[in-house]
């Protein structure tokens, strides 16, 4: 197969899963004829036909709600929400139904569906095209949340998400879509949900990040002895990998784009101060978005955690 970018890797995962399982269907706005605004579903309508790839009306609540019925009936819908900022209309369907139908029916009905959506700052598009609201979904028992960071794990994680028996929110960092290329084997392989990856080993500071911020962190750690953890799955969290790393390093810096207050970084910091406090040599720092609305294009780079801000945090924890 050779080197692919994330758009191509996801497209390949979708194609292979649709080949493998006739119950996998794709629906969303502009996913068919147009191949999706990021071209992630390009060619799939032509290949699998309009029964498997549905161009829907402009109706986020409706298509997510309908997917719940489809999933309960026996399909495996993969919904595309054009941008995360437009998923909010569907939050009730995800939280009140997708996340609860298994428990509500004591297992009689389940909801194996995937909601894919481009996420984060990245393409200088208009307002609400740069959202990082992963914490909402992380606070919903019954859903899983996944964020790839490379073409390799993008494919492997999406395969796992599609095969998962429960609803999975699959967040695709727009900034990385075409920015990273890597070897992506064709055919069978899955990156398991619920497992973080130690992206780089190190001894003095544990850095936890995901998606775009993983790459930011990699720029920043140079000159420090950092262990970088790529969460991959934000919920359920791979607590063990984080805690073991912190027990080793005694220092933790978490990086995310979303506003800091009640972001996922808070949970990770809380987890560590609950389970590994005695190992901590320095305060746990979060490098995250400020308490503000994500700005439009002109200011978005200022909003986003920069390598410089991450470096500052690393220096700070090293003072202890």
């Amino acid at each position, binding site marked *: 197969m050779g080197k692919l970018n994330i758009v191509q890797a996801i497209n390949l995962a979708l194609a292979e899963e649709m080949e493998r399982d006739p119950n996998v269907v794709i629906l969303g706005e502009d996913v068919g004829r147009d191949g999706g605004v990021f071209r992630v579903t390009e060619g799939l309508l032509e290949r699998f036909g309009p029964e498997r790839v*549905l161009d829907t009306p402009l109706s986020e609540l*409706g298509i997510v*709600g309908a997917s719940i*019925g489809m999933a309960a009936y026996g399909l495996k819908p993969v919904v595309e929400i054009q941008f995360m900022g437009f998923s909010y209309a569907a939050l009730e*369907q995800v939280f009140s139904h997708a996340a609860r139908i298994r428990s509500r029916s004591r297992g*009689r009905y389940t909801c194996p569906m995937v909601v894919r959506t481009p996420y984060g700052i990245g393409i200088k598009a208009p307002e609400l095209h740069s959202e990082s609201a992963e914490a909402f979904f992380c606070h919903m028992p019954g859903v899983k949340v996944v964020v790839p960071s490379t073409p390799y794990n993008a494919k492997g994680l999406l395969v796992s998400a599609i095969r998962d*028996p429960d609803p999975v929110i699959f967040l695709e960092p727009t900034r990385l879509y075409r920015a990273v290329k890597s070897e992506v084997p064709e055919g069978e392989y899955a990156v398991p949900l619920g497992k973080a990856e130690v992206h780089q080993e190190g001894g003095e500071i544990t850095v936890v990040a995901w998606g775009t911020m993983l790459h930011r962190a990699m720029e920043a750690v140079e000159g420090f002895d950092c262990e970088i953890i790529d969460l991959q799955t934000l919920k*359920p969290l791979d607590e063990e990998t984080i805690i073991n790393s912190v027990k080793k390093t005694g220092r933790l810096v978490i990086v995310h784009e979303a506003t800091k207050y009640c972001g996922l970084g808070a949970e990770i910091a809380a987890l560590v101060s609950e389970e590994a406090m005695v190992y901590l040599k320095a305060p746990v720092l979060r490098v995250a978005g400020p308490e503000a609305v994500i700005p439009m294009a002109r200011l978005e780079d200022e909003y986003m955690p920069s390598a410089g801000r991450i470096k500052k945090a690393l220096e700070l924890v090293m003072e202890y």
Partner: protein
Amino acid sequence: MPLKTIGKFEIKNLQVLDEKGEADPALMPGLSDGEVKKAYEAMVLARTFNSRALSLQREGRLGTYASIRGQEASQIGSALALEKEDWIFPSFRESGVFVARGYPLWLIFKYWMGDERGMKVPEDQFIFPMSVPVSTQIPHATGAALAMKLKGHKKVAAVYFGDGASSRGDFHEAINIAGVFRAPVVFLCQNNQWAISVPRSKQTAAETIAQRSNGYGIEGIQVDGNDFFAVYRATKEAVDRARSGEGPTLIECFTYRLDDHTTADDASRYRTKEEVDEWTHRDPLLRLKLFMEKKGLWTEEYGKEADKKAAEEVDGAIKEAESYGAPDPADIIGYTYGELTGRQKKELKDLGWES
């Protein structure tokens, strides 16, 4: 370059059986005497279940409950027009639908006693758990219908919701999508005139809910919801159309909620006794009984028998529901995902809920 008419539309109301029990032979659905009796007995059973649920609640043996009294024809007339393999998506006020499907009564009691196990739907039943958030179940029916269509199954999805539900976005998006894909789904609006204290007239400025269908390019009709035959006929036609690929239908069952909204409500705060009395005379059971009497299908003794059978069945169900063991706290966690997460295993230990 004129002001020209580009579309014309009519909305119809169907009544087959009048309040005196006279049926219009031209409109009568083809039902055997046996089927009519079965329907009557289901309506009696539903009403018996309902009144016992209300008294159990008063005795503190059951939680908040939403009464269906007055809506038996709307619920049972429509449910009986579906096939066993068709899927149903009910709201929280659909006891009659469960009864019509032969859903184990003790499970319905169990559910209203605040126990999820009541909605662990038996494998041979194709009904979704009741949806508490109003209207949110409507898109599920559209999706299931789409799945039936994509899989080439000749099945139909039917979804129940109220007049209040028609004001929510779910209603709109679900019906519009169903229209676009001609999904085999029947949208059954139980217009019982009230959404808690809000009357239909304040729910929308439209004359009927049924006329919304035109805005989605689908079939629509209003039926007398206290007329078993009208409800059955309209639903059967809609189900047949859906099954044969002709797309969705919106049916507005014009009926009335005779009791308080739920056991937590006091309807006397917002509506008059006169209004309720007037509708009490339109009782759907009474109307079907009058019809059957004329046909010689209903006799004092048959009536007694039906009441007795219903009472026995309900008594048995209550006994079963109450004898059933208490729920296991571990189940709070156990059904969240297909498999327990690491955190959940830890929580089960910490909470002492491990088995």
